[in-house]
């Protein structure tokens, strides 16, 4: 009798112990592939992107829609489209990720389009800003910006400030050319005149000759676009040394973020930038994000636009996963769930346009001033709910 009871108890216990397993079987972890830059010339924004992802996970956990989220990181190591394609293929085919994220450069995403289309893998572009990118795959969704948004905002701010004679100086690569196009189109549409334009080769080290050229032109504003880092520092120092910064309105885009300001001296005061984020934003999401960032990485760490973009990108990814709760993961359906969504982001409100899959957001005009003895980006204006602009080539 006792033995039978014992046997029953044991069998029951055995069956009961299987229960968690059956529950778990429904919650297979979901893998996300992040194509980022841990080394190479873009390691700094790459680090920011990682930070944004980490903060998101800290504040939101790693389980969503009944699934545990696993993240696999891959390092581009620099600009290399061949590597981008290989990494995307490996992540999708070998590592079996369900969603792709990351993508700082346009050339990180463009080569991956083929494999993404073949496998219908939803892909969230965190920072890559080229306008043509979204036409290359219906599975691309963007959370950073379309570069035209900030270029147009810069033009409109300049027009608003009464400027009518512009010089456009960009680095000679695709994003630079895009800025040129969009700025020119918006500035001329508002009655302004483009006095001259120049494209600086990417390998330029000494910007003094270019600054000299600009100085000799009859203008009242200058729109620039150079990659952040060595180029931005060199260029702005040259502009300041030639007096261009003092005499004209100079607008850039992301060359002198708050985290970079230790590279510059007081000659940068007065430099404007148009971008979709500013550390100085006062909304609750930004405050929470900044606090979490400083808590995790130290009080000296500043929030940056790549970090915020990554944070929002993860938000979108989580929404996609959530939409597939309780069923097998369907890439196309998950991606649909992201369209039309509005996220409360540290940058303000961010909506994903249903038709274009582009972000609709406010663009802020920031000016570098000295606040309490330190250089800071101060918000002086903003353009509301800017959509991705479309112009004929």
């Amino acid at each position, binding site marked *: 009798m006792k033995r039978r009871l014992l046997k029953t108890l044991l069998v029951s216990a055995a069956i009961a112990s299987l229960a968690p397993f059956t529950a778990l079987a429904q919650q297979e972890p979901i893998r996300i592939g992040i194509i980022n830059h841990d080394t*190479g010339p873009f390691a700094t924004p790459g680090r920011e992107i990682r930070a944004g992802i980490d903060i998101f996970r800290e504040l939101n956990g790693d389980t969503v829609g009944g699934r545990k989220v696993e993240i696999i990181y891959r390092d581009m190591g620099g600009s290399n489209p061949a590597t981008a394609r290989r990494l995307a293929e490996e992540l999708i085919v070998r590592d079996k990720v369900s969603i792709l994220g990351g993508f700082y450069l346009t050339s990180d995403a463009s080569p991956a389009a083929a494999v993404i289309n073949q496998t219908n893998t939803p892909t969230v572009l965190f920072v890559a800003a080229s306008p043509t990118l979204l036409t290359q795959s219906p599975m691309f969704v963007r959370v950073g910006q379309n570069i035209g948004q900030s270029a147009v905002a810069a033009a409109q701010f300049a027009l608003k400030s009464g400027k009518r004679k512009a010089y456009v100086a960009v680095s000679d690569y695709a994003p630079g050319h895009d800025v040129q196009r969009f700025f020119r189109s918006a500035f001329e549409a508002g009655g302004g005149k483009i006095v001259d334009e120049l*494209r600086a*080769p990417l390998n*330029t080290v000494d910007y003094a*000759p*270019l600054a000299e050229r600009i100085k000799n032109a009859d203008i009242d504003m200058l729109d620039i676009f150079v990659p952040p*880092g*060595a180029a931005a520092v060199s260029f702005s120092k040259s502009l300041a040394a030639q007096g261009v910064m003092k005499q004209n309105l100079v607008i850039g885009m992301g060359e002198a973020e708050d985290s970079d300001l230790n590279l510059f*001296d007081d000659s940068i005061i007065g430099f404007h930038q148009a971008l979709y984020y500013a550390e100085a934003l006062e909304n609750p999401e930004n405050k929470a994000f900044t606090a979490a960032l400083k808590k995790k990485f130290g009080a000296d760490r500043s929030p940056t636009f790549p970090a915020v973009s990554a944070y929002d990108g993860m938000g979108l990814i989580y929404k996609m996963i959530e939409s597939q709760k309780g069923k097998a993961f369907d890439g196309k359906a998950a991606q649909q769930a992201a369209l039309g969504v509005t996220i409360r982001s540290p940058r303000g409100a961010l909506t994903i346009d249903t038709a274009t899959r582009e972000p609709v957001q406010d663009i802020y005009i920031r000016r570098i001033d000295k606040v309490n003895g330190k250089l800071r980006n101060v918000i002086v204006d903003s353009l509301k709910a800017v959509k991705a602009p479309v112009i004929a080539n």
Partner: protein
Amino acid sequence: MDQITPAASFILLYGVSYGIVLFVISIGLVLTLGLMRVVNLAHGVFAVLGGYLAFNLPSLLGIGFLASVFITLVLVLLVSFVLERVFFRRLFGMTELEQVLATIGFCFAFIALLTFAFGPNVLATKYPEWMSGNFSLLGRQFPFYRVFVMACGLVILLALWLLFDHTNFGATLRACVDNQSMAKATGINVNWYFSVAFAIGAGLAAIGGIVGAGMLPLEPLYPFKHLPLFLTIVALSGFGNIKASLVVSLVVGLVDTAGRYFVPELGAFTVFTLLVILVLWRPQGLLAGWK
């Protein structure tokens, strides 16, 4: 005519100051190549090391900029002297290709270490107050910084001239270059002289890196990034020919500056097109008998 004077004065000042920075950095490479027949692709390492030390020591040790530069020079001289004995000397017996490989490897390792220590970004460099600001001349503004660079270049040139043409050390060094076996036969410790020359070259590169940081920003990839430029100057100069390397550096500086001023789009091409033309035109004038 009105257009020409400002443009000309700009190109002259900026082109020459840029050329001088290139000269000061490349001299060490010219010397090493001429003296020891060693292709040292890692030469830029000393320039960037000098820069990183000079701009970081003030905050680390609480000292002024000039003191920091002095200490940096001493450190670089010591480190390069030791490195020459331990590492670079052994390149002497190798083929050129092996030298290329070994020095590229050294470069890689150094860049990796620099990235560990300081991160991959550009270094924030702030020159002291007395070096900034402008003054007016010929109806335009000239930055003090550029004038200071030119002054430095002149001082270094003078020092080198005095060293090589008017001291025993210089004479002995030239003897080692011209006829090594003879020098050895007369009891000169040739190896020691080579180490010293190498250290001098490294020290000069460090000065170039510090003084040139306003034109060539300091970052871990610096030695690779500017290697084509340094090699160009060395190739167009002669074997250990300091005067030629000065002329070449100034020409490169002027051509590059003028090119970027008048035709910014083609800025990347001017120096290298110049190189191709010059090398094809006067191959015998350049490093004849390289092997």
